[in-house]
């Protein structure tokens, strides 16, 4: 785990990056589908807009957190040719590390009774 953290620089992930990684999970999605999944998984509380999304995708490709995949042959939704993305091992590790970091922060919040569900 230490190594994986070192790979991502150990720094907290940008929120957009974290959202994309969570949305991708271990599946393959195109850009618009990622927007939809982010919206659905946060119950509409959080949206990611195309500008932020595609800047994040370009950055994540450079950092090796995600990789581009061949578009499946049966993509009958029309529109321009879409790129599909998938998390790399490094991306999954980064998402895991970020989640751990979040959980540690949540634990602190619970202990201080800022968040309900902690020890009383």
């Amino acid at each position: 785990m230490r190594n994986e953290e070192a790979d991502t620089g150990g720094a907290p992930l940008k929120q957009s990056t974290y959202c994309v990684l969570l949305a991708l999970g271990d599946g393959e999605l195109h850009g618009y589908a990622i927007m939809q999944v982010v919206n659905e998984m946060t119950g509409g509380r959080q949206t990611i807009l195309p500008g932020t999304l595609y800047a994040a995708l370009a950055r994540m490709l450079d950092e090796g957190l995600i990789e581009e995949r061949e578009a499946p042959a049966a993509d009958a939704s029309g529109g321009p040719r879409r790129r599909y993305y998938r998390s790399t091992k490094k991306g999954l590790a980064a998402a895991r590390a970020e989640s751990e970091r979040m959980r540690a922060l949540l634990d602190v919040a619970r202990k201080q009774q800022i968040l309900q569900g902690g020890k009383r």
Partner: protein
Amino acid sequence: MSRLYRLALRAFPSSHRALYGDEMLDAFERALDARRRDRLPVLPFAIAAYVDVTRAGLGERRRQAQRERVGRRAFGSVGRDLAHALRALRTSRGFAAVSIVSLGIGIGVVILMLVVTRASVGRPPGVDPGSLVELLVIPQGSLRAQVNDWAIDTWSYPDFTAVRDANTGVTVTGWTPAQAIVRPPEGTAVRVDAMYVSPNYFQALGLRLARGPGFTASEAAPPEVVVSHRAWQTRLGALPGIIGSTILVNSTPHVIVGVTPEHFRGHFAQHRPGFELWLPLHQHPNLSGPNSLRYNRHIDWIQVLGRLSSGASRVAASGAVASVMAGVAQQHPATNALKSAAVEPYCSTGARRRTDVRGEAGIVLAVAVMVLLVVCLNMSGMMMVRAASRERELAVRLAIGASRRRLIQYLLAESLVLATLGGALGAAAIFGLPAALAAWLGQPLEIAFTPDLPMLAACIGLCFATSLFFGLLPALRFSRPRVLVALRDEAGGGGRRVGRIHRWTAAVQAGIAVPFLVIGGVQLDQFRETASANLGFDPAGVFALPLDPSASRTDADPASVLRSVQRELQRADGVTAVTAANGLPLDMDSRRTRVVRDGAPAPIRAHSTRVAPNYFETMGVPLLRGRGITRDDQPGTEMAVVISLALATRIFPGGEPVGQRITLTLDATSTPTDIRWPSRSTPSRDQAFTIVGVSGDLVDAYLGPPEPQLFVALAQHPAPRVYVVARSAAPPRAMATAFETALSGLYADADVLAANAVTAGRLVGRSRSELAMWSIWSAVGGGAALLLAALGIFGVVGFMVATRTREIGIRIALGATRTHVLRAVLLDAVKLAVWGVAGGLGLAWLWVREMSWYSFGLVEPLLYTAAAALALGVVVLAGLPAARRAATVEPIVAMRAE
């Protein structure tokens, strides 16, 4: 709203817009549509999206500028291109793997040939070639025509001593290869390669012995020997006090007076694994006894090296040596009238073969370079396909200000990465596999495949040259995409066509595979045939022992030594017949002789064997007419020859051959042929013979259909090395004892000599496995050619499809089915290769006609069909990926550009 969003997109750098602009706009529009569907407010979302795209775009611009600054600092543009190429290749692993393997094959072949050529032509270690020279006899007039060479590298002993003792400005040293039997103080006797040399041999070579003073110049000294470092280490127990001790060489005690340096093998490149003993020339058996060659000018057997004295020029020395030989010619016109001499610079393969060897090395390297060239052409085809599919990206780069030079560099970086990885793979195979094999076998291989600095430099240079060769053409072609067309059109290729040179090479490669496949099949069939074919002699129970009749320890002449051995052998249990001959069927020693029928203009080539009485009975060869060679065929009587049925039908079609006369050109002396020694040209002469019998046909030196053969009397034409042959029902072990007993009274070390006996069955087995090996190698050659052809076709058809995407899209839009498109593309691939395959079939037909092959029946057309079908099958397979790509072209892609 979309128009406004498109405007806001300009906040992003143009490269980002080119890649993602359409998708971003599409996502924005879909999100808007979704909100409208769900009756959610649209305007706040749109405003948020405008702000978001502007903010993210500016952020992206900042990031790009920063990245470029860092990149420039860290790598420079070349490093960045290489890193990018590596990343790009990682995403297309299939392409990278195929390219690296095929480049590995191409570069590996060239490296292998470089290594082998260097090992066979390179200067042998320990020799100082500075002023080293070789003395050659230069034949004149008719002698030159007879030897059919510009020089003779052997001298008669008296001629050698004449130039040695004259003042010519050259320190002359003589040498001749031989074999010797060493009996170390501990351990068993072995036969080793030895060299008889003048006492000044090592000084002339400029070699300092690792131990010991070397030979004393006096002929009166007791027998001396210099041993190789290897022999000292492996055979003589690496004893530190070796100098001055005694070993038995050819049953005579010899004092060890020197050990050569560790790496010294001999003075020529072909001296490998190398000699183990050096003995003084004056101890050579040829110079003692009643048949001594000391004053014989008829037989040439000494080779001569020399070192120019300081200040002497080679030209002057050559003149001096020539004038010495002119003097000898005046005194001995019968033997020397047509002999002059010259001093030639030392060459690692022998000065006589200097030009031949360079030519051979040149041809070998040229073939290897041709293979690499073909691989390069294939690769350049594949790079074209790749570049064509990335044309849009290249156009974008050009549009945002990349210079053409920068684009070429970017494209070449990928070629360089591929060539380097391919070269590394090839080099690892060439240098790694033999080392691994040697480690596995537990003994060093003969050719050392150790990479050194020049070899490493050659490999790196090769990789650079290769990458330039296959990368430059695509880089030049695609570094100026027509920007507008490319940006508008996703169809790729920009309307370019596949180059003619690529089409031709692909076709030629598919064609080249055909003859190899056919020949592989022919050899396999030949192997099948010979397993059941009649060899023409009966190998069961035939035992043969190679023997040098002049090397016995008695003073008797070689002919009577041979007769006594045969007589002794005849007495052994189970032996039914005994004979002798200078060769055996299937001994892989081709002994070609020119045969001319009196009055006929053109000579015929026939395989000749010199045989003793009883040859045909012993070998189990039927005599069809007349008689065999008998005891009556002695020197002084009429020259007798027995010819085979094949020769009889060719030279006297329909006539009676027995009693007729023919003229043969036999070598004056026959020397043992061994690839380790330079072959020697020996004068030959024409002689008239009377045909006394006709034998049945039998195999010659190699397996195959019956070739013309003839048999002359060994007694009339003695040979220095012969086989004593016995037919016996006894088991091999008993025969080894019988041979040893037969030799024991005449030869020292009879046990070592008897161990060399072979059975005819073993020769047959060796020939058959040789044939099977050739069959396998031909098939491997055909397979490799097919593999390369597949890559070439893959590239060409792939590029064809890439350039015709729009046309294919239109066809599909107009109603062509996917099957139609698939079929059309595959048909194109077959059309491309069919000319090559047809040419290959023609070549195979000619090649098969050149070979001697039993069967021209049904098997031959079957082989042609199978080879052509296989080649075309591979072509179809290679075209399949591109054809499938074509069949899935979306008509919309083709239409959008219009």
